[in-house]
């Protein structure tokens, strides 16, 4: 196989573009896709003060690397979720990436600063693990962005992530969620602007970016993720994609362009009355925000080791 651009030997084939690329021209293709997303969806300007949600995995390190490469200055935020060894190791990958490049990584530890961790919150709230985890992360990322005076919060969601969520929401016709599933969410009501610059790149492409750029990321998965619903949706979509390359791209990007506007009326109105949470000051509809409720319950529970969660009927891939 030869590179579509320079005819040198290719290192990767990208069926959805019906093209093969050498390392250099693959990186160029990725840059173009990210610039197009930033442009089309009005994500970032060079004056923005940017905070990136960093996990130590391929997507968050790839987006941090790419934004730097494209001339954006950004700090990272890592949250120690207390998911056993996985969390320790992922934190080391994030820190090493930042240190090697002289970047600023802010670190928050759930256990040290909020008195609980994800396994304990899962048991204390009887939710599925990713729900307690996701709620904690969203709250702390929002809070760090607002408190730190950042103008925009960047996450590493890629095309596969967004297509899988869209697939799940469509199968159930979750109109409220569909209305909100956009690559850029403007700042409002005390919440920061949020953007996903990788929505035009597949997971295979963000991983290939890391391999070609020599980025050492944590390949091992969160031990809790196994068996979650999104992985099943990703598998299903990849089966379709293999038979019909480009389907995931069309499914997601056509949704954003043609369908999401039709659902806009189902989004929660902008003018719902929010007031500061009496405990943490974050905007909420009630007295105490959902995060503080969760944290209070989890703190009252004795610490739960991660094995107790992963032992429960998890499906291994």
């Amino acid at each position: 196989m030869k590179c579509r651009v320079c005819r040198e030997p290719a290192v990767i084939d990208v069926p959805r573009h019906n093209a093969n690329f050498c390392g250099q021209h693959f990186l160029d293709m990725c840059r173009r896709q990210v610039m197009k997303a930033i442009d089309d969806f009005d994500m970032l300007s060079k004056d923005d003060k940017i905070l990136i949600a960093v996990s130590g995995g391929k997507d968050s390190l790839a987006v941090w690397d790419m934004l730097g490469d494209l001339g954006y200055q950004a700090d990272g935020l890592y949250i120690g979720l207390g998911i056993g060894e996985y969390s320790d190791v992922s934190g080391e990958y994030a820190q090493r990436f930042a240190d090697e490049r002289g970047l600023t990584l802010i670190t928050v530890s759930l256990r040290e600063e909020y008195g609980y961790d994800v396994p304990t919150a899962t048991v204390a709230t009887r939710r599925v693990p990713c729900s307690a985890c996701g709620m904690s992360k969203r709250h702390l990322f929002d809070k760090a962005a607002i408190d730190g005076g950042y103008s925009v919060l960047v996450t590493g969601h890629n095309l596969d992530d967004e297509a899988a969520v869209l697939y799940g929401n469509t199968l159930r016709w979750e109109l409220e969620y569909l209305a909100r599933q956009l690559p850029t969410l403007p700042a409002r009501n005390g919440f920061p602007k949020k953007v996903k610059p990788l929505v035009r790149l597949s997971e295979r492409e963000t991983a290939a970016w890391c391999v070609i750029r020599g980025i050492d990321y944590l390949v091992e998965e969160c031990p809790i993720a196994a068996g979650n619903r999104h992985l099943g949706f990703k598998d299903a979509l990849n089966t379709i994609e293999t038979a019909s390359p480009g389907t995931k791209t069309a499914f997601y990007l056509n949704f954003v362009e043609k369908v999401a506007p039709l659902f806009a009326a189902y989004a929660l109105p902008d003018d719902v009355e929010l007031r500061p949470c009496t405990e943490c000051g974050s905007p909420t509809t009630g007295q105490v925000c959902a995060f503080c409720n969760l944290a209070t319950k989890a703190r009252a529970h004795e610490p739960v080791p991660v094995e107790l969660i992963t032992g429960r009927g998890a499906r291994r891939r």
Partner: protein
Amino acid sequence: MKVLLRNPRRELDIPGPRRVHALLADLELNRESHLVIRNGTLVPSDELLADADTVEIRPVISGGAL
């Protein structure tokens, strides 16, 4: 050839030569969700892997509500 798989980590011995796409098909792995890396370098799907090669098949799918 030596084939390193991840999640969970394991090693297989598979006779070469073999093309990358054939190796993935033999192992029932989807090309959309894996990269194949030989000596630290990515290889495309039609690459011929030699019996003496050591390759890593790296899954690229992450889970989790984000």
